[in-house]
């Protein structure tokens, strides 16, 4: 999809050719990879399949992570779905549980699909698979959603590095939620403009998000954050489908995010030198954990 240097160029291509973003992305990527569109679609659907397998195994497991810092929360949420006091829809509960399940599997050293990174892998997976399970969306539709999500992430990655170390969590979970929001609009058959508004709305809401992992591990706050980010992705997509537009065009939102990433102090960019990582509780865990880590084999 190297053809599209900006979202503006992508949108112009879609309008000129009366095509959707997923069609534009497939055509461009199939040229780039020298693969047929059918084979490419098949390869992407395998990734959707893996996302579902990760989620299924995650919501069934109470196992702790390798460090012992997380694990078992997805299962708790699924059990809460029918609780008397639950005010959220089953869809919202599923979104949170699936995002958490993905990150919990990640920290158990089980298989996940990085999207765009391992630490941000919950948003897109939870959104697409919850749409399948709760709304009966077809695998074809969610695969189209994933292709669009990937296309969004790719264009963003031309303007900023997608890593917490480079630009904070906004570059991982923030971008992931933009990808998820756009992917959901595509799966619902929204217009290319709606896809981009959804992504822009979602990313501006998570702009500025810092990366402050306790003990440097991809667990606290990453696990719950992935659970919540899929809900806000679906909310952003819903806004766009209702006709709400992002006042700031998406290309400018991305440039702003890259600028915020540059302005962000290094203590808040995956170094575990600020935020939750330096709270007394975070520090206590980190000290214990490092003591364990330093013990030679």
């Amino acid at each position, binding site marked *: 999809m190297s053809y599209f240097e900006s979202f503006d160029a992508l949108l112009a291509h879609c309008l000129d050719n009366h095509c959707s973003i997923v069609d534009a992305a497939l055509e461009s990527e199939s040229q780039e990879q020298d693969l047929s569109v059918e084979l490419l679609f098949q390869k*992407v659907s395998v990734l959707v399949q893996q996302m579902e397998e990760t989620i299924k195994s995650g919501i069934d497991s109470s196992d702790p992570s390798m460090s012992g810092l997380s694990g078992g929360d997805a299962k708790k949420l699924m059990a809460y779905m029918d609780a008397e006091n639950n005010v959220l829809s089953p869809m919202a509960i599923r979104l949170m549980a699936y995002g958490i399940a993905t990150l919990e599997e990640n920290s158990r050293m*089980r*298989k*996940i699909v990085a999207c765009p990174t*391992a*630490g941000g892998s919950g948003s897109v997976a939870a959104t697409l698979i919850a749409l399948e399970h709760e709304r009966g969306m077809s695998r074809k539709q969610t695969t189209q959603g994933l292709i669009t999500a990937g296309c969004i992430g790719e264009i963003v990655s031309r303007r900023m590095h*997608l890593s917490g170390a480079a630009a904070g969590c906004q570059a991982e979970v923030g971008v992931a939620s933009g990808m998820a929001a756009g992917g959901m609009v595509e799966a619902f058959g929204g217009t290319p403009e709606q896809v981009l508004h959804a992504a822009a709305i979602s990313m501006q809401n998570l702009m500025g998000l810092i990366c402050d992992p306790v003990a440097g591990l991809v667990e606290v706050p990453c696990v719950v954050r992935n659970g919540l980010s899929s809900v806000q992705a679906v909310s952003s997509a819903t806004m766009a489908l209702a006709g709400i537009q992002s006042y700031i065009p998406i290309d400018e939102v991305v440039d702003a995010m890259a600028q915020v990433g540059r302005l962000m102090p290094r203590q808040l960019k995956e170094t575990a030198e600020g935020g939750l990582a330096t709270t007394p509780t975070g520090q206590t865990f980190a000290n214990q954990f490092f003591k364990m880590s330093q013990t030679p084999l």
Partner: protein
Amino acid sequence: MSPSFFDIVGPVMVGPSSSHTAGAVRLAQLALLIAGRKVVDVEFILYNSFARTYKGHGTDRGLIAGLLGYGVDDERIRDAYEWAEKESLSFKMTLDEKPNNYSPNTVKFVMTLDDEEKLVVVGHSIGGGKVYVSRLNHYNVSLKGEMPTLIMFYKDQPGMIWRVTKVIAEQGVNIASLTCSRGKRGVEAFMSICLDTALYPEQVAEINQISDVYIVRSMDKLSS
């Protein structure tokens, strides 16, 4: 190279970190490609963030698994210690926390191969599973595993590049980039050549037979 869809969505990988786990696996895979044969003993020297957080991120397991030839999605990564024993790879993990100029996620592989050749490789994981090797023995190199690559040590003297590239040209293979680095004038130099397609084994053998070429390795690109 321009980013591809599958750089953004994917890889399918064993967690928890694309830089500290998948990156570690890929770096070790790259070291194995450079070695070109079974590694029987290795010391992993970890620096900076790798040294501080390797256990929680499974960097140690990833490095072992990669040297055994396992991929980033191989669930044997979790049990890499047991697999190392089964496949008779002896290893040692050393933490070097002295200040250095290396990038955050750096590891040095001090390897002994099955023919007792020694090889030292320094590699870096730079995010999203992307990696590169910056040093091979005492040469500064830049090996990324993105393309089939020919690497060789040879006697430093006039005409060596011509002799090698002639063989490549005869097979009709296009050279994407070529880098040379001299160890000691008139004694030894190093060359790496990135190719659009891999050479046939016969051509590799032909290059190996050029007089004063000491060691040649034909590396595939890293599987994604």
